[in-house]
């Protein structure tokens, strides 16, 4: 499997979706070539590889393109069978891992973006929405993490990856927004879990410089606030 494998990841350094794939590849120790896409000027290749959505991330493995980050994660786990697994081997645990990854994806991504894009009362409302969903995850993780069998299941899998890609940049969130998503007093389990996740080598390797993340978050926030003020 090793020598002939050509793996290319088309991504964007600040995209949490692309980040998931980076984290997975790093964690599995899979060598890959990275292509940084300019989302305002997407490459011909990206448009060819993902004609349906025209989005990052796209993984190209020996010329075959796969889109959709969660689909890519499962593909990676099924194709590179050596080393740590991204999904539990037990079928019920797998279903739970998929459930919680989906939940974070569906209920928390847009909700947290909204906090970045708004201010005042609208932002307060958005924050409450996020906290409501985080309560559910805090509860869910109590059993999900407790029931993990450390000898058969890795402590860094798809749920960690999805959570980390979104909430990993917590220092930048705090600096730009003046608030935390994962408030330690409200979400003690999620907080300690996140603190452990960001120490994982694969995560450290994929963490951009703080100033760069702050910069893009500021940009994203300012342009969103400007366009909603103009509207």
């Amino acid at each position, binding site marked *: 499997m090793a020598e002939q494998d050509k793996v290319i990841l088309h991504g964007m350094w600040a995209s949490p979706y692309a980040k998931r794939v980076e984290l997975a590849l790093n964690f599995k120790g899979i060598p890959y070539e990275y292509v940084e896409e300019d989302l305002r000027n997407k490459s011909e290749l990206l448009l060819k590889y993902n004609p349906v959505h025209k989005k990052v991330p796209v993984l190209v493995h020996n010329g075959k393109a796969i889109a959709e980050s969660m689909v890519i994660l*499962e593909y990676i786990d099924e194709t590179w069978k050596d080393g740590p697994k991204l999904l539990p081997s037990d079928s019920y645990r797998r279903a739970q891992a998929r459930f919680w990854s989906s939940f974070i994806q569906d209920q928390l991504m847009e909700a947290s973006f909204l906090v970045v894009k708004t201010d005042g009362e609208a932002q307060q409302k958005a924050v409450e929405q996020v906290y409501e969903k985080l309560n559910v995850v805090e509860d869910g993780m109590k059993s999900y993490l407790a029931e993990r069998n450390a000898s058969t299941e890795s402590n860094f899998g798809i749920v960690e990856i999805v959570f980390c890609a979104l909430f990993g940049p917590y220092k930048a969130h705090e600096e730009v927004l003046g608030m935390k998503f994962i408030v330690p007093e409200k979400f003690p389990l999620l907080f300690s879990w996140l603190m452990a996740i960001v120490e994982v080598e694969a995560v450290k390797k994929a963490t951009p410089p703080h100033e760069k993340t702050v910069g893009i978050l500021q940009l994203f926030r300012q342009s969103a606030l400007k366009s909603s003020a103009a509207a």
Partner: protein
Amino acid sequence: MAEVKLHGFWYSPFTLRVVWTLKLKGIPYQNIEEDRYNKSPQLLQLNPVHKKTPVLVHNEKPLCESMLIVEYIDEIWPHNSVLPADPYERALARFWVKYAEDEMFSAFVAFFRSNNDEEREKNVEKVWEVLTVVENQCFGDEKKIFGGDIINIVDIAFGSLFKFLEVAQDIVEAKVLEDEKFPHLHSWYNNFKDVPVVKENLPDHEKMVAFIRVIREKLLASS
């Protein structure tokens, strides 16, 4: 003997996905019909996060989210597999399942909820956009159904939503599944409905229309 229970709605495309998968594999199960306006305490306990059907209970452990359930069933009972064996083919199949869950579902539901001519026109366009993507991207070889010989996860995900769309057409009184516009889709869907496990496990169309019409009325009245 493993105990399998399914909490669902006879008229729900999501429940149907699980029914087809269980029947395809000959898995005996206890069917528990839920009332969407009066969900059982068991259901709320089994799916506290979403409080929705379908919920599969296997050896007293609950599973939710229809396509997650389908993949779980396929792992535990691998015969008559609904997933391609090759990881790349599998990734393509999962890609289209996600497309069904995101783009297809939202377009079909918006169409279903259309409450006036303007909305309906706009939502028909949205549905056509989605159907055009599928028509153009999903049909290359001469397979009758996506799974070849046996329905696979793409057939299951698409087929259930298409049944819902068929019902919605009658309720909203607008035709979207035009054969001339979408020839491949049209023949795939007919093939799909002809597959024995689907044919034998599809609720009566008129019954579905009548029942779902009432749900829609209540939905629109409360919004």
